[in-house]
């Protein structure tokens, strides 16, 4: 991270902001999926392998999230971008654990920041309640643009914080090889637990569970043959 040029840091900041916006506000094109966010971040820092490995871990965590109704969930997008910045340039077997730890903390923080923005949106609406009750279209437009700006700022601040933390960790935290590998294995095991939990919960006990088991069988076969 410390060796990243200012141009790369800036591009990560822009990418993290877009990814943060995409989660809920606009355009929900799925660039906020960790698989996409991580791989593009990896490409930006010149280490696509790290982007893929870290992106897939967070994608497994994200499979435990069903974003329905008013449910609260972590924001894995900017978190993945910062985690890739930390892990880039090192062998993934050693860096994945620490990157995942940073990303998970940021994802939780991202989820909390999303709730804060939603509360601010509600307050902004209350302030313009009279204009809304009078049917002023301009009030609706102003509310919408203000909320989009708030969410963009949220994504940018989250990414910036992540990049600063990544830089600090890379400079100061030095793990021995055994600890780094163990941390990576804990990250992989936990991510797989999240994915299994999400898959089983979504499948329920009906026909869908049979399809899940059939898929698992096909997956084992593929894993053996690949």
């Amino acid at each position, binding site marked *: 991270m410390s060796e990243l040029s200012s141009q790369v840091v800036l591009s990560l900041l822009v990418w993290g902001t877009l990814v943060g916006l995409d989660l809920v506000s606009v355009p929900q094109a799925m660039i906020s999926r960790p698989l996409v966010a991580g791989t593009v971040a990896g490409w930006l820092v010149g280490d696509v392998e790290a982007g893929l490995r870290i992106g897939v871990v967070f994608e497994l965590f994200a499979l435990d999230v069903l974003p329905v109704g008013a449910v609260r969930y972590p924001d894995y997008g900017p978190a993945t971008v910062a985690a890739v910045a930390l892990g880039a340039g090192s062998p993934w077997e050693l860096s994945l654990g620490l990157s995942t730890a940073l990303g998970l903390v940021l994802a939780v923080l991202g989820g909390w920041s999303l709730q804060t923005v939603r509360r601010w949106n509600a307050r902004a609406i209350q302030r313009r309640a009279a204009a809304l009750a009078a049917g002023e279209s301009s009030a609706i437009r102003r509310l919408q643009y203000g909320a989009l700006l708030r969410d963009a700022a949220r994504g940018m601040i989250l990414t910036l914080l992540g990049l600063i933390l990544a830089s600090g960790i890379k400079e100061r935290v030095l793990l021995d090889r055994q600890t780094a590998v163990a941390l990576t294995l804990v990250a992989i095991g936990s991510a797989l637990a999240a994915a*299994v939990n999400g898959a089983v919960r979504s499948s329920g006990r009906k026909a869908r569970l049979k399809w899940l088991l059939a898929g698992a069988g096909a997956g084992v076969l593929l894993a053996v043959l690949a």
Partner: protein
Amino acid sequence: MTGRLRALLRLFAVQGTWNYERMLGVGMGYAAEPLLEDLKAVDPVRHGEAVVRSAEFFNCNPNLAGLALGATARAEYEALPGAQIVRLRTALCSPLGAMGDELFWAGLVPALIGAALVGVVLGAGWWAIAGFLLLYNGIRLWTGYWSLRTGMESGMRVGAAIGSSWLPRAIERVGPAAAFAIGAAIPVVSAWYLKPFGFSAGVGAAGVLMAGIALTRWFSPFLTTVRFALAAMILLLVLRRVGV
């Protein structure tokens, strides 16, 4: 640019002002603005009332919001009583939420993500990711267009139009596809990560996996998988620190 196209584009930001009071309400009002423009010249009083109604509480899956938007906009032009339009809007919240969530969040997204994960592991790399983005956004764009058009064509009869459309059948089919794709992805991704570490490391990761599943189920909803992962990492670092 026509009003309908502008409304379709604005629907991509329908969750922009998401909040716990009106939920998608203001976003719907923002998307409704181009559709209601012509009403201003015909009946300015009615237009003002329609704008107020368009930004009131509303919630559903954002990808199917066009059905409610189109149906209520048509009802406004047909000069139906305001209370009837509000009832239609309220009645559409739950079914559009449930159907959209089943179709997109529990169906299409995991199905395509599962396929993309398998593709990445098998070496497709960028192609797998590009395929995911193109397919998802293609389907979503078409669904958004269809939703708005169907809503505007059917008005108050939008419920019947949804019932006889492709939506219920698609939901039935996409669920099993999602389950199969995620089921296939998990072992493939596991092998991708664990192969370089050897057997004993694989057993260790499997132990974490089993502990994660068991503990997050026993201590749900307090212990999420994210909290479990962070706790396990902290425990590991403490144990290493004390020399275990």
